[in-house]
C-alpha cells in the first residue's frame, strides 16, 4: 500500500516537473518589464522568525531589519548589485585624508509624525547610536570622532582615522533616521511600538507580537520610480513571523501569504515547478563556517589539523545532500560573489583530498585526530549537516564527535574560547567585504571566535580600511584571504547562503537582494 502511494506520488511529481519546465520561471525580478504598475492592493510577507526590536539602536536580529527597511529611511542605501546610492542624503564628499564626510541632505523629507528631517535630526540619531550605553551600534560607529551640523541640510562627520567601509555601515541600522519626538515620547516601550517614528515608504500602524505587523502606505513619501511614478504602489503591507518552514510554504501556496524570503532547501524543487509561484535565488552575502578554537593549549592551535579537516571535507556534497539540498553556493572564503573583492578563481579545496588530509595529521605526529563539534540541540537541519560531515571526515580517519548543547551555552563557550573542538557559525553578511572579514580574523576582535592571531593578516586588514582605491582594497583582501583560508586558517568556510524570494504570480516589481531583505516600495499587485 505504501509502495503504491509512493509510486503514485513519484509519477505525479515527475509529471509536474515536466509540465513545470515549460511554464515555470526562475531568476530575474518578478513580472514582465513592459507591464504598467497598478496602485493599491496589499501584500502579506512571511519571515522566518519573530522580531526582537523595532529600535535600530537595540536591534540585534536579522529579521528586525525586514520591518525597518519598510518604515525607516537610511542616509544611503544599496542596489542589488552592491552599489551604494543616495537616499536621505546625496553621496557624501570625502576629504583628502579620508577622515571628514560631508553629507548634503534631502530637504523634502518629513517623518510620519509630521516633524521635519534635517541636519539636527541626523546629528541626534548618530549621537544616540554611538553614545547610548546599551546601544548595539557602538562597535559599528566607533570610528566616529564627532558629528557637526553645518547648516539645516548639511552634516559633517569626522572620523578618528580613515575608515573605507564607513559609508556601507550607514546603509543599514546605524544610518537609519528616526524622529526624535516620537522616540523620546515612547520611552522604554518605544522599541515595541515604533509607530510613526520613521520617514520610510510605509507607516507602521499595528504590531501584534508573534502574529503580524501591519503597515500602511506613506502618501507623502519622497521617492519616485525610475519612470517617474510616485512610490510606493501598495496600500498595505503585512509582515508575519512564521517559524516553521512547512507552515510558511503552505501559507504561500494557499494564498494567505503572497511572498517570503525563506524557503527550505527540500521545498525548492516543489516551488520551482509550481506555476502559481515565482521563485528567485541569487548568491547571498551571508556565509556558513566551521570554527575551531585556536587559543593556545587547545587542539586546533595546530594549523595543520584545521587544514586536514578542510581537505577532507566535501563541500559540494554538504551543499547538495545536506539540509540546503543544493540551495546556495559553495564557499572557500568569506568574500561573497556579490562583493567587489570576490575572486571566482579562488578554489583552494575544490575536491576533497583524503590522502593529503591523512598525511597532514601524520606529519603532526600525535596520533589520529579526534575532536568535538558543538551543535545546538534540537536543530534538526544542522544536526543532519553535522552527521554528514562526520561521515566525510571518517573517511580520512578523523573522528568528529557531535555534542549537543543549548545554543546559549555554545555562544558563551565560543566567546570565552574555552571549548576543545569546533562549532558551526553562520554570519548574515555585510555589504562591504570588511563586514565579513575584519572582526572575524583580526587579533582580539570580539567576533574573532577562533581566537585567531596572525600579524600579517592584521596588517593587511588595517590597510584595507585606510586604502581609498577599490582596486587596491581588492588586492589586499585577496592576499589576506589566501593566508586566513589556506596558509594559516582561521576557520573553515563551506557555503554562502542563498538570497531567496518566493512570490505569488500576481506580485510584481519585487527584487531579490544579496542581503535577503525585502524592499516593498517598488512592489505592486496585478489585479
Amino acid at each position, binding site marked *: 500500500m505504501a509502495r503504491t502511494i509512493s509510486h503514485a506520488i513519484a509519477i505525479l511529481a515527475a509529471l509536474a516537473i515536466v509540465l513545470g519546465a515549460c511554464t515555470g520561471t526562475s531568476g530575474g525580478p518578478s513580472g514582465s518589464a513592459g507591464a504598467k504598475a497598478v496602485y493599491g492592493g496589499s501584500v502579506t510577507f512571511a519571515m522566518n522568525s519573530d522580531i526582537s526590536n523595532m529600535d535600530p539602536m537595540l536591534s540585534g536580529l536579522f529579521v528586525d531589519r525586514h520591518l525597518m527597511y519598510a518604515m525607516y529611511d537610511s542616509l544611503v542605501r544599496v542596489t542589488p548589485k552592491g552599489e551604494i546610492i543616495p537616499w536621505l542624503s546625496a553621496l557624501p564628499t570625502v576629504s583628502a585624508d579620508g577622515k571628514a564626510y560631508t553629507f548634503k541632505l534631502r530637504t523634502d523629507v518629513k517623518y510620519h509624525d509630521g516633524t521635519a528631517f534635517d541636519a539636527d535630526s541626523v546629528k541626534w540619531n548618530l549621537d544616540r547610536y554611538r553614545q547610548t550605553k546599551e546601544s548595539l551600534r557602538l562597535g559599528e560607529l566607533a570610528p566616529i570622532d564627532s558629528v557637526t551640523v553645518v547648516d539645516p541640510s548639511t552634516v559633517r562627520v569626522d572620523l578618528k582615522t580613515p575608515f573605507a567601509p564607513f559609508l556601507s555601515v550607514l546603509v543599514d541600522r546605524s544610518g537609519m533616521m528616526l524622529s526624535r519626538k516620537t522616540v523620546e515620547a515612547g520611552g522604554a516601550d518605544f522599541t515595541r511600538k515604533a509607530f510613526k517614528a520613521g520617514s520610510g515608504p510605509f507607516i507602521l500602524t499595528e504590531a501584534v507580537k508573534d502574529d503580524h505587523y501591519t503597515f500602511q502606505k506613506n502618501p507623502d513619501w519622497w521617492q519616485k520610480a525610475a519612470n517617474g511614478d510616485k512610490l510606493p504602489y501598495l496600500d498595505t503591507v503585512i509582515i508575519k513571523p512564521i517559524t516553521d518552514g512547512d507552515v510558511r510554504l503552505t501559507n504561500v501556496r494557499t494564498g494567505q501569504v503572497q511572498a517570503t524570503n525563506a524557503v527550505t532547501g527540500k521545498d525548492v524543487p516543489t516551488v520551482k515547478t509550481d506555476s502559481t509561484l515565482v521563485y528567485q535565488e541569487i548568491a547571498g552575502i551571508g556565509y556558513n563556517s566551521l570554527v575551531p578554537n585556536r587559543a593556545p593549549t587547545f587542539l586546533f592551535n595546530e594549523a595543520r589539523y584545521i587544514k586536514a579537516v578542510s581537505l577532507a571535507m566535501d563541500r559540494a556534497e554538504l551543499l547538495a545532500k545536506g539540509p540546503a539540498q543544493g540551495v546556495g553556493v559553495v564557499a572557500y572564503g568569506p568574500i561573497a560573489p556579490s562583493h567587489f573583492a570576490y575572486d571566482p578563481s579562488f578554489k583552494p579545496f575544490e575536491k576533497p583530498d583524503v590522502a593529503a588530509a591523512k598525511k597532514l595529521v601524520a606529519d603532526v605526529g600525535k596520533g589520529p585526530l579526534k575532536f568535538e563539534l558543538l551543535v545546538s540541540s*534540537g536543530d*534538526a*537541519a544542522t544536526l543532519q549537516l*553535522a552527521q554528514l560531515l562526520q*561521515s566525510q571526515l571518517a573517511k580520512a580517519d578523523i573522528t568528529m564527535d*557531535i555534542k*549537543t548543547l*543549548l545554543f546559549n*551555552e555554545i555562544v558563551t563557550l565560543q566567546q570565552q574560547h574555552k571549548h576543545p573542538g569546533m562549532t558551526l557559525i553562520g554570519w548574515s553578511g555585510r555589504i562591504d567585504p570588511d563586514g565579513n572579514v575584519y572582526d572575524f580574523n583580526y587579533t582580539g576582535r570580539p567576533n574573532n571566535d577562533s581566537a585567531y592571531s596572525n600579524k600579517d593578516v592584521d596588517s593587511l586588514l588595517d590597510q584595507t580600511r585606510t586604502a581609498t582605491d577599490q582596486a587596491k582594497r581588492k588586492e589586499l583582501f585577496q592576499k589576506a584571504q589566501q593566508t586566513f583560508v589556506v596558509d594559516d586558517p582561521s576557520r573553515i568556510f563551506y557555503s554562502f547562503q542563498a538570497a531567496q524570494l518566493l512570490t505569488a504570480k500576481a506580485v510584481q516589481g519585487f527584487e531579490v537582494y544579496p542581503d535577503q531583505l525585502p524592499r516593498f516600495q517598488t512592489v505592486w499587485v496585478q489585479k
Partner: protein
Amino acid sequence: MSGATLPVVLPLRRQDRVSTVRYFLRKNPRMLVGVVLLTILLFVAAFAPLIAPYDPIKVNIVDQLQPPSFGHLLGTDDLGRDVFSRVLWGSRVSLSVGLISVSIGFLVGVSVGLLAGYLGGTFDLLAMRVIDALLAFPALVLAIAITAALGPQIQNAMIAIGVVAVPGYARLTRGQVLSVRSREFIVAARTVGVPPLRIVLRHIFPNIANPLVVQATLATAFAILAEAALSFLGLGPQPPYPSWGQDINYSQRYLANMKWWMSAGPGIAIFIAVFTFNFLGDALRDALDPRLRRSG
C-alpha cells in the same frame, strides 16, 4: 484508598509461590498478554544489535530519503540510514530511560512518603510543602528546565523525569502509610518495641506494595512518553545514536513533503512500548485491587 482492606502478605513456601503465580496468570488473561508484550520489548532492546539488519549510525548519503521497500522495511532517513534498524536500537534508549527514571522517582518518592507518613509532625509538614511545590510546577516545564540546566544529555533527562515523578509516589505512599499506621498489628509492633525502620520495611511496606507496583508500571509508560517528548524538543541523547523521540524531531520537517516513513517507525514504536506498560499496569491494577475486583 483510606478504609480499603489491604491483603496482609504472608511469606509463602516455594512450590506454593510458583503455583500461585500460575494460577494468578490464568485467572487474569490480560496480565498474561501484558507480560508477553513486555518480554518481547525487553528481548528487542537486549538483542537489537543482533536483530537489526543495518548499522543504525553509518551514513549512506546516496540512499537518502528512500521510501519503504523490501531492502529497507521502513525506508531510509535523510542520511540514508535504515529506519527499521534505528527503531530497534532506539528501544534501548527509551526503555532504559523509562526504567531508570522511574526507579529514581520511586526510590526518592517512596522514601519520602514512608518517612513523612510514619514520622508525621514537622518532617511531614515540611516534606509535604516541598512535594506540593513540585506538584505546582507544570511537569513538562520542570523537566525541560532541569534538563536545560544540567545539559541536554540522556542522563539528565532521566534525572529530570525522575524528579517529576517523585511527588506522585510520595503522596501515594504517604496516604497508604497513614491508613495502615493505625492498624492493630502495627500498633502492636510499636508497643512491643520493634525499631521504626524494621516496622516500616517488614510490616508496612509489603502491605502497600501493590498499588505502588501498579503506579510504577504506569509511570514507566509516562516516562517513555516524557523521554520522547524531551527528545522531540531536542533535549535527549547525542546524535547520531538513535532515539525514538529524537528521530521524530529530525524527520518531522519532511512530513509536509509526504516523506512519512521516517517518523512513522519511531512513532509506532513509542506507541507499542507505552501501550505495553499501560496495558500491564491496568491489568495489574485490576488483578491486585480487591475493591475493583468486587465491582468489576
